[in-house]
């Protein structure tokens, strides 16, 4: 399976990663090899096998609807790069987000 330079750009953009040209070239090759390797799984006949999303044999791990102590606002704000009046401050966002 091959992957184009355009795909590398697209994935890097989605992941908010900036790459040098050298890195792009290396990733183009690496990603193609990874995809080829994983594609081997397609050779296995899975027609009678239930899809697996988790490898642990665990199900239904719930908690009861009870409150537990939250962090102190000061502690939360301590790890924020910028803050003001108890809020975390981020670069200005004007547009609505493309999601609900």
């Amino acid at each position, binding site marked *: 399976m091959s992957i184009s330079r355009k795909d590398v750009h697209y994935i890097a953009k*989605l992941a908010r990663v900036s790459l040098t040209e050298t890195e792009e070239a290396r990733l183009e090759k690496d990603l193609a090899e990874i995809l080829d390797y994983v594609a081997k799984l397609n050779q296995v006949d899975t027609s009678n096998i239930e899809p697996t999303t*988790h490898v642990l044999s665990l199900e239904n791990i719930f908690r009861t609807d009870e409150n537990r102590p939250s962090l102190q*606002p000061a502690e939360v704000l301590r790890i924020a790069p910028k803050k003001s009046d108890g809020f975390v401050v981020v670069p200005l*966002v004007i547009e609505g*987000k493309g999601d*609900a």
Partner: protein
Amino acid sequence: MRMKRRSEGPFYRIYNKHERGGRSEEGRRKLDVGRETWDDPLRESAMEYETVIGLEVHVQLLTRSKLFCGCSTLFGAQPNSQTCPVCLGLPGSLPVLNREAFRKAVKVGLALHGEISQVAKFDRKNYFYPDLPKNYQISQYDLPIARGGWLDVGFEGGPKRVRITRAHLEEDAGKLMHVGKGGSRVDFNRTGTPLLEIVSEPDISSPQEAALYLSELKAILLYLEVSDCNMEEGSLRCDANISVRRPGSKELGVKSELKNMNSFKAVERALEFEVSRHRRVLEEGGRLIQETRLWDERQAVTQPMRSKEEAHDYRYFPEPDLVPFRISQAEVDEIRSSLGELPRERLNRFQTEYELSAYDAGVLVSDKALSEFFEAVCRAVPRPKQVANWLTGPVLSEMNARHKTIRELGLKPEALAKLLMRIEDRTLTNTMAKEILPALIDSGKDPDEVVRGKGLKQVSDAGALEPVVEQVIRKNGQSVQDFLSGKERALGFLVGQVMKETGGKANPALAHQLLLKALAVKKGGAL
């Protein structure tokens, strides 16, 4: 628990006969008959279009703690005071599902006639935005809580069935406030609050029908007690997909996705704006592009969201931190049995059992607590219609004037029942009872005590009324002459005068009877 506040008012719009929903086939035909005179603001030319709408509703589930951690979901707390490593997405933290949120989601799925997934799982939806600290939202992709189902909306001419696509659980994002040049502020208190997203099929065919759908859905959610549905606090939010097409066309037109509508009215108005915008563009030979648009309430327009021209690619994948959730048929049955009576069922029952009009039943049913109050009063009072009139009239006025729910009003069903019985046994006139109502609410006392305290008691003793009747006849010679010369209406005026003289305390039927008797004597004398 979320703080309770009075929601949008008691009218169940679905059942309000003054507001017609989407145009049914029949309705459309009726409109077509009068086409020349039909003034529809959406139709600026003879070209026919069909409107296709699908809604995505996000409802905050009423739980004490967040979806995956123990932080409080209380609205209005100090910013960033209800967060922890799990909802902030700090390294090393692990989410654990809130059982109550899961059960409430199943409850809604069942009430909407959906099929509950035997195995549900969670997935990561990846995107970058400052209100989403993990850079992914835990949501559900291919195995949601419920799939399929439907919702009946509208009333007159029979309900319209809108199919439901799915209902899935996800976590809410934080709250972003744009304050200007300095940057945007983020409050993460809301991050991780349980949301149920309910997606409809594109079965809705007008903005009005969309509003009816929302109103019906809200009523169901309130009856199930799974959410407070408070739009001002963001507990119920709605996005809409809308397109128009030529009738008979199989394919959907180019759609707009509308956001930022903060009330049912805003949803309706935004959709109306968008319908006419689509029609205008098409009629002018223009081309629509698929885009997300934001409703601007102040200017009453939708505007394209300024966003980069890249398709959303959320790269969903299974959430490895949450194992699958399997629900047994026994548990599904148990939750189903807890649904209780839903608004539409109650509406039908009120019409048959109490012989109420669709309108009265609709007003009562629009408020679950009010409909229960009604039934409690009816257990002690013989005429349900009278109870309905009192609740939809004076009691509702008091609720509105005081901005209180029926529970907050503090009026006990037993107290109202007793008051109405005092009308039945002629101790009070209807007018007197209405005058007493505010005092009854304020004092919380027994109605009889309030009546005594106010010195209000209907005068049903002929001996006490006769002198007043005589006096009224003496003072209103002209009206007496009018009556004697055949003007029946003059009698009503005289009864009114007796009521006035007694400060409303006279039993009107008795006053009427005594006046007739006295006038008959006069008539006899005149002859």
